């Protein structure tokens, strides 16, 4: 045990940090783009506050296209773009690019479905008060769906923890990279098990935190 920690301790700490860094930062960026996109998907539907059938159809198509590309392929397909954007396609920071691209449409769908849980009458009441579409979005739709949005964010982060293992394996970095390099290529089963345990703990932690926070802020 002591020898194991001496050999791999620093690497595991670094790997854990890299995994957290990749998944949380890409979740953050994915929300910066996915939240407006998800809201747009919801409000441009017929009978919503900004009905725009054509825009809605285009957004839906784009989201579906990106979502239908398997992540492992997306990972490789965006390498030129990643190189152009961050100067390199390897390393933890470079891995964030495909993670964000893969997560934006996922986030958009989660946000869209949170928005659709909101009772129509509440939006109607705000319209009747003379609220503008923009006011309805940021004073009604987002605050009223916050508990559901928080749950969605924890689902997104957990999905990204899984994806970051793949991204790390291609680009380098994170617990997934460790598991593949040592566990798979060098048959180091102990290290593989340890990384799995660490990933399980991280996922449990994120889920628990998300569920707790969502419950805590929900007044309904």
């Amino acid at each position, binding site marked *: 045990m002591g020898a194991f920690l001496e050999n791999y301790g620093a690497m595991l700490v670094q790997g854990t940090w890299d995994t957290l860094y990749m998944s949380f930062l890409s979740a953050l960026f994915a929300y910066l783009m996915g939240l407006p996109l998800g809201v747009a998907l919801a409000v441009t539907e017929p009978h919503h506050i900004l009905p725009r059938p054509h825009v809605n159809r285009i957004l839906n198509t784009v989201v579906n296209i990106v979502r239908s590309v398997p992540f492992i392929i997306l990972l490789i397909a965006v390498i030129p773009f990643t190189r152009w954007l961050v100067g390199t396609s390897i390393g933890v920071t470079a891995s964030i690019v495909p993670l964000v691209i893969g997560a934006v449409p996922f986030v958009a769908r989660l946000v869209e479905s949170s928005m659709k849980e909101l*009772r129509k*009458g*509440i939006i*109607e*009441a*705000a*319209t*009747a*008060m*003379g*609220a*503008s579409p923009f*006011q309805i979005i940021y*004073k*009604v739709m987002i*605050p*009223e769906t*916050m*508990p559901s949005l928080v749950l969605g964010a924890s689902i997104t982060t957990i999905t990204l923890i899984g994806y970051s293992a793949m991204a790390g394996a291609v680009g380098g970095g994170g617990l997934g990279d460790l598991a593949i390099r040592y566990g798979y290529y060098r048959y180091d089963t102990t290290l593989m098990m340890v990384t799995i345990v660490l990933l399980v703990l991280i996922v449990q932690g994120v889920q628990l935190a998300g569920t707790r926070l969502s419950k805590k*802020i*929900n*007044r*309904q």
Partner: protein
Amino acid sequence: MIEIRNLCKVYHNPTGDFVALDDVDLTIAQGEIYGVIGLSGAGKSTLIRCINMLEKPSSGSIRIDGEDITRMRGRELRRIRQSLGMIFQDFNLLMQKTVEENVRFPLEIAGGKQAGADGKVRELLRLVGLEEKAGAYPAQLSGGQKQRVAIARALANDPKVLLCDEATSALDPLTTKSILELLKRINEKIGVTIILITHEMKVVEAICDKVAVIENARIVKDGPTAEHIGHFQEVM
């Protein structure tokens, strides 16, 4: 103050067109409590929702103090909506906001001076008898209390008109009575015109000065409540 002329509303369904309002004329004077009564599907909700353009009429005009709301769009429409309060059968309160925040909400929407907002909110909560519930969330309130919050909220911007779409239909008879008394008291105190739709005769009898009967998308009778009670009892 409100003049509805030749109002028609046609819904275009995939299965064909449906006429929900057919050439409706109605004149409602300042300060009146005007009831619209009819059976389910008669077009009551459609009518009241046209008055604040939640539904866009197919043709006809609705003049509010001379201004035709059916011609308004965008900013102009939002401004006049601030002077038309509305309450609903299922309250439609913001569930993640306190009672106080709900009542303050229309003031925030209207923007401008926020200075008197606290006082205004307190005064409204006193009016509806919910001062001690200011910090509670709607989920912690009874149906009657929720409707009181909705009434306070609808009055926040000092509207000229209060539109009530089956405001008491989700409430028990005793709570209905107290909400109707509250509406009557508000009407007397601040002179707000109230348009109230319902399918219950006793609601009309309790507070309406005048009443119109709507049947199959048409107004078939209207006038002072007292003169018409007999007729309604036949129709309903």
